[in-house]
């Protein structure tokens, strides 16, 4: 198997050039999908038989929650790559992605609270799903804190990578919390092996919104990684040349 593309990803210079080509189009594609999905969901999708209009917050809540978990999965993989292969790009990725994932977890928690009040009758309850997502948010905070407070860069990279990998254990707990324990949160409406528990005119805008969130997060992460690369590689020849030529 040809691993050249994988090894290329490890080069900050190569990644910077690749990302400067793709970050902006990816971000705006995400924004477009998000707008289409959310407007479709908020205005045109049918109301729900039980919750009426209230359920429409699903078009933000579910994508944000999925992204919070996906971002963490990517952090865990990057942490593993750093601890085993010592790739330079991995800590750059962790540092850039952690705040984005934390924002997604925060959106999921806040939109969930707003949704919970009118439907369940409470903003918050310490059930397994809500608590495990709060733990996810705190893990993000821990990674951000480690990356930003440890002055020794190598130590900061190492510590953040270790927390990222260990935190992976939380992901199956979040996913299966609603099946393993009695919770106030309902079980999943979607799964890879089952039919969605809603008709197509409801899940199609949700899917578009979800795709939008993925692209938006990818674009944001690439932007953040670009500036992080410039910062970390500021003493290298190619960054100096780039700054001299483009005045970035």
């Amino acid at each position, binding site marked *: 198997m040809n691993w050249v593309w994988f090894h290329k990803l490890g080069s900050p210079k190569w990644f910077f050039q690749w990302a400067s080509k793709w970050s902006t189009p990816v971000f705006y594609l995400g924004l477009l999908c998000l707008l289409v999905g959310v407007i479709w969901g908020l205005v045109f999708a*049918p*109301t*729900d*038989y*039980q*919750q009426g209009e209230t*359920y429409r917050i*699903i078009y933000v809540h579910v994508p944000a929650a999925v992204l919070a978990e996906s971002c963490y999965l990517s952090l865990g993989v990057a942490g*593993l790559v750093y*601890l*085993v*292969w010592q790739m330079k790009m991995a800590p750059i990725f962790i540092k850039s992605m952690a705040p984005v994932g934390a924002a997604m977890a925060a959106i999921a928690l806040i939109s969930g609270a707003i949704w919970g009040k*009118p*439907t*369940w*009758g*409470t903003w918050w*309850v*310490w*059930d*397994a799903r809500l608590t495990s997502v709060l733990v996810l948010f705190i893990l993000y905070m821990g990674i951000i804190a480690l990356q930003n407070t440890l002055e020794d860069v190598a130590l900061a990279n190492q510590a953040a990578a270790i927390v990222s*990998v*260990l935190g*992976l*254990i939380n992901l199956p*707990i979040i996913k299966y919390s609603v099946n*393993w*324990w*009695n*919770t*106030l949160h*309902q*079980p*999943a*409406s979607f799964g890879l092996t089952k039919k969605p*528990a*809603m*008709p197509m*005119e*409801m899940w199609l805008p949700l899917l578009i919104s979800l795709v939008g969130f993925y692209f938006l997060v990818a674009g944001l992460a690439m932007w953040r990684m670009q500036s992080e690369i410039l910062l970390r590689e500021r003493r290298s020849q190619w960054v100096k040349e780039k700054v001299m030529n483009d005045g970035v």
Partner: protein
Amino acid sequence: MHPIRKKRLITIAIILFVLSSALGLVLYALQQNINLFYSPTQIALGEAPQNTTIRAGGMVVKGSVKRDANTLDVVFSVTDFKHSLQIQYQGILPDLFREGQGIVAQGKMLSNGVFSASQVLAKHDEKYMPPEVSEALEKAQNDSTPTSSSVNDY
């Protein structure tokens, strides 16, 4: 793979495995603390602690909701289809509270076997559908034999 990298990978895999097993055992041991509520069966079998605030959850039995005409008092039963539990509550119920719907109530068991709730939360299932579809389903269900009626999750 380079032997050093292989060693690191195996070390991480072992640490992850040990930690997740330990956490799994802890979560299993704490299962009853993590469960948000006791089911009517657990309460009937005496698994729920006495004389302390607990949560009880189940599906509101159809036709069991009795409201007082002059006050906010309401009495209803919840069931897990094996046992049922009578709950009394004073206050405004959440919008989604209705018969056949899952609820979680927080309160205490009284000596007469009635659960006195200080808070009632409504659960909803993971299914979403437009009202017309729901009406059509209900109509189809009423037309068919009772054996085909499905039981909602709670």
